[in-house]
């Protein structure tokens, strides 16, 4: 039984692009039709495989951007300059084109809606993707688990899911950190996530929140180290590091 489940989860399935939503000039959400998809938890990822006409293959991991929804699966992909896979998926890849996907993968960096502890989400750049799946899963499950999101991005124009995040949601607090350019009219200067940000915007350590941090390695290291220094329990901090290997 367990065996069947595993091979099902890890079988390559053919997906077809059904819908494109541009998030920013360099990132797009791709919605796939993926018959036979077994479902997943918010925070899990998939492996995506592209095959060229001569048989050459390239494989990459992408977080699932939305909670399970039948045979529909959403990914949000940031174009990386010279990126073999992301340049194809944010460029020529068109509605109806096939691709292979397997998953879901990763049961650790995942949020279960029945989990009652408060949640702290810390996103750096495209690290927002699996965290957005958690925010959407919270809404879809109709639970009131208190959530805080701290979203670090270079400029306001680089924000993903901007319209959706602009609509206020009870129990979801959002703090933005801009590292290069502030929104019009916002006082202060651009800066990186630091002790002051987390001390103000995160849950106090004694609340026992589950924390999910996702982004480039240096960002994840910094945020996790600050939380530890503020007394957070290391076992409550889950991290996912991604982006190209050289950040």
């Amino acid at each position: 039984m367990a065996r069947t489940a595993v091979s099902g989860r890890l079988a390559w399935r053919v997906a077809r692009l059904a819908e494109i939503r541009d998030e920013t000039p360099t990132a797009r959400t791709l919605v796939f039709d993926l018959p036979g998809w077994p479902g997943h938890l918010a925070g899990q990822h998939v492996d995506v495989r592209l095959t060229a006409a001569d048989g050459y293959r390239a494989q990459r991991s992408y977080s699932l951007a939305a909670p399970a929804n039948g045979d529909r699966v959403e990914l949000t992909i940031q174009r990386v300059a010279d990126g073999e896979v992301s340049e194809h998926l944010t460029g020529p890849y068109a509605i109806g084109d096939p691709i292979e996907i397997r998953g879901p993968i990763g049961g650790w960096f995942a949020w279960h809606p029945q989990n009652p502890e408060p949640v702290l989400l810390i996103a750096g750049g495209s690290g927002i993707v699996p965290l957005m799946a958690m925010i959407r899963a919270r809404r879809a499950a109709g639970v009131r688990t208190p959530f805080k999101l701290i979203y670090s991005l270079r400029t306001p124009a680089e924000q993903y899911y901007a319209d959706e995040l602009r609509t206020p949601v009870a129990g979801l607090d959002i703090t933005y950190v801009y590292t290069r350019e502030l929104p019009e009219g916002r006082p202060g200067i651009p800066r990186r996530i630091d002790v002051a940000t987390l001390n103000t915007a995160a849950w106090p350590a004694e609340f026992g929140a589950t924390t999910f941090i996702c982004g480039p390695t240096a960002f994840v290291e910094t945020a996790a180290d600050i939380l530890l220094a503020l007394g957070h329990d290391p076992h409550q901090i889950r991290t996912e590091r991604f982006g190209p290997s050289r950040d």
Partner: protein
Amino acid sequence: MGVVTPGFQGRARSGNPRLPPGQYLAEDFPVLSAGPTPRVRTETWEFAVTTEKGDKHTWSWAELMALPSEKPTVDIHCVTQWSKLDTRWRGVAIDTLVGGLDTEADYVLVHSYGGYTTNLPLADLLDGQAWIAYEYDGKPLTPEHGGPARLLVPHLYFWKSAKWVRGLELKTRDEPGFWENVGYHDYGDPWREQRYQGD
């Protein structure tokens, strides 16, 4: 061959015979782990080997430093597809630590500071195939890369090379570790692309 994605060509193939399938060459040294980086002080560091009968052998940092060390230069391969060639390490061979023990065990569960675990066949740690490494590129191993000491098993995917290692538990039965429990491959041979269970 899989399903062809129209218009996809891919980058020029490397053709480097030292790269296992699906791997690319990384110039930097990416960091991947499941949680925050534990900061382990050598003053309180201890390493233990426990046999299946419960006999426990421990080494302090000073005792580890006093053991004969080796300087392997090896290729390493991460399941997230980067590889590095000719990485230079220094450490104590696992043979030196478990060679004299009385054991019937075939398996090892590796334990780390911070709670991480991973499993391997004992045979894969012996005969000069694995080390407790404490230097990288001539310098003490930094915390992000598993310092003060990590396991180094270059012939398997790098999640088996547990960072912040604190002990080896010898076992007569195989028991999955942290990633293996969430679907990663029990063995993890990069040349056979054993990423997940069933590969």
